[in-house]
């Protein structure tokens, strides 16, 4: 019986997916998303990682809101089309498997839109002659799954439970308010960064389980839903614990507790003086320090994917590393975004010429909280990108901001010429 229900549910999920993807709303959103992806990937200097990141950004900020509404519309379909009694009179009509199947089918719809957007961005890269990077696109897709699951679960569950899409509309408004008022809302309320996916996934699963437990109660269609209710409670508890974990194990505490990080943040950068040292991890966890680079001129750039214009310094550093290979130029890019998952594809694109390291400390990606990062504090970084050029004796010879980037090559020529 359970196998039969599960198999039926899997097939229903497929039909539900087809239903969700057939409406004109789906194609309007897919077309708008594709145009947006095309536009974001067409600017000069846009790499695959940047195009994929832009698509992810659009997804979590805009598509997830639409996902709430798409899911709400799907959940209200039976009532809207007066098909509730036909469905409820069937053997699987009030089964929790049906709830799960419908959720999965509806979730597939925004995921498909993301795939279309990423495909458009990749096609644009290929047509433009730029290398396309499968890892960047797959990374963006994977990072969309949890936020879209939560958004879909919100729209689907609230509409099912409250018998009105109005509740989902309120959820959508809340969702919009999170990125708009990120500075004011708790860090944990923003479900977009990679490290928050467990909270988003647990909340989504909890909402769907709760919906399955309560589904059909209005028609008193019987059957014990107690185990599902307990499962929902456990999932919500798990999400709560994960959220508390994020809230209370923030890098602020780490910065205060770790004497090395405190010492790193306490350094000061002065022209023509030895630059602040560091000891920070790269993408594979290996610690990279300034002392490892003795007797080499160094280009040290601060950047973050949440400020996409700063990401172009990676490509500039890569070009510089190739050009000044004979001078043994070391290129280090310091990512000051705390969303390390977002930065990984960028690092993959420019290795081995550029070493990307992550500054530790809690620093949001909105351009306002970078001062919390110890290395950012030491180098007095106010905005990204910021490039510091050090000579072979670690002395700071030049600092360049975004406007000064065209002068990078000339400045490097001078620095590598320093004895």
């Amino acid at each position, binding site marked *: 019986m359970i196998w*039969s*229900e599960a*198999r*039926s549910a899997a*097939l*229903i999920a497929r*039909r539900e997916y*087809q*239903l969700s993807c*057939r*409406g004109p709303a789906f194609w309007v959103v897919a077309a708008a998303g594709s145009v947006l992806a095309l536009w974001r990937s067409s600017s000069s200097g846009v790499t695959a990682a940047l195009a994929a990141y832009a698509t992810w950004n659009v997804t979590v900020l805009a598509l997830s809101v639409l996902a709430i509404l798409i899911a709400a519309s799907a959940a209200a*379909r039976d009532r809207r*089309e*007066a*098909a509730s*009694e*036909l*469905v*409820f*009179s*069937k*053997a*699987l*009509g009030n089964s929790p498997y*049906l709830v799960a199947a419908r959720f999965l089918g509806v979730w597939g719809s925004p995921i498909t839109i993301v795939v279309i957007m990423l495909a458009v961005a990749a096609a644009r890269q290929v047509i433009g002659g730029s290398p396309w990077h499968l890892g960047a696109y797959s990374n963006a897709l994977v990072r969309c799954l949890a936020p879209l699951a939560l958004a879909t679960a919100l729209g689907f569950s609230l509409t099912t439970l409250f018998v009105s899409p109005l509740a989902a509309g309120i959820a959508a408004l809340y969702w919009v308010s999170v990125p708009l008022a990120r500075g004011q809302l708790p860090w944990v309320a923003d479900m977009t960064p990679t490290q928050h996916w467990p909270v988003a996934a647990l909340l989504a699963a909890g909402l769907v389980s709760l919906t399955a437990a309560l589904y059909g109660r209005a*028609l*008193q*269609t*019987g*059957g014990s839903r107690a185990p599902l209710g307990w499962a929902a409670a456990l999932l919500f508890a798990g999400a709560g614990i994960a959220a508390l974990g994020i809230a209370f194990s923030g890098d602020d505490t780490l910065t205060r507790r770790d004497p090395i990080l405190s010492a790193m943040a306490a350094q000061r950068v002065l022209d023509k003086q030895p630059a602040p040292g560091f000891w920070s991890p790269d993408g594979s966890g290996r610690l990279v320090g300034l002392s490892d680079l003795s007797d080499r001129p160094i280009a040290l750039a601060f950047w973050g994917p949440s400020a996409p214009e700063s990401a172009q310094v990676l490509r500039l550093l890569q070009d510089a590393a190739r050009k000044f290979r004979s001078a043994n130029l070391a290129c280090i890019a310091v990512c000051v975004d705390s969303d390390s998952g977002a930065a990984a594809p960028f690092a993959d694109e420019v290795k081995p010429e550029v070493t990307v390291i992550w500054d530790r400390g809690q620093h949001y990606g909105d351009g306002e909280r970078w001062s919390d990062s110890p290395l950012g504090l030491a180098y007095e970084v106010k905005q990204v990108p910021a490039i510091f050029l050090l000579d072979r004796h670690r002395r700071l010879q030049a600092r360049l901001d975004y406007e000064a980037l065209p002068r990078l090559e000339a400045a490097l020529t001078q620095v590598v010429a320093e004895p």
Partner: protein
Amino acid sequence: MQIEIQSLRKVYPGGVVGLEGLDLTIPSGLYGLLGPNGSGKTTLMRILATLLEPTSGEARVGGYDVRRDKAAIRQVLGYMPQEFGFYPNLSAYETLDYFALLCRVTDKQERQRRIEQALGRTNLTQLAGRRVGTFSGGMKQRLGLAQALLNNPQVLIVDEPTSGLDPEERIRLRNLWAELAGDRVIILSTHIVADLAAGADQLAILHRGRRLFAGRPSEMLSPLRGKTWIIDIEEDELSRVRGDHFVTGVFRSATGMQVRVVADEMTHPRGYPAEPTMDDAYVHIMHQEAGSAADDLV
């Protein structure tokens, strides 16, 4: 297969009484439910389809209790409600495929066989690939019936199935009832007496949640044998005849008008005996109920 109903009562929130202590036994075959709007037909059908909980009393479908054994009843049930809709973006075939999955028919070939059979029985084969959103009312009605047939139901409950259908489709449906009935129960609710006249094995008349009659059509007709008459009248005579007799129907004829009346004796010079029809019996029963209600008031 048999449905047993004992002292079934349904009171809606707000105190509206849907059913008032109904007793009924519904055997295999085509069973008609007759009654005016608000008589409790739909309430009874929704309770039997496990979509509505009764307030008190018992109802058993093939031995399964409608309160406790909902899942078991749904396995053997086909239900077509009075008002329903489908997902407009799916074709007729896809719609039936969706509902077949809801009936737990997971085998693709078996699903295909059942869908084609249901489409054929409801004369929808030619429209299988067409989107349901473009269907007329009659086509939707037939698709509603097709979805109810998907699980080869032992109990088929159809609420007002002929509304919106053209005469040819209605005849086709009547033939379908005859074909489907047998050892399964088909409950057909209607307020059109002619839908049942042709083939109902038994029927019940409900009024204000109570049973006024239950039995074979012949039993419904037998009290009127020898008491049903046709009178040829002039048009200006109608109101006088209405005053003198209980009229069950008025028709136009080539020479003027004819009225059907129920009376113990015929005193009108142009009156002559006629065979009672279901319409005569239905109107007579409803008239008696109205009379007893008036007596109760007195």
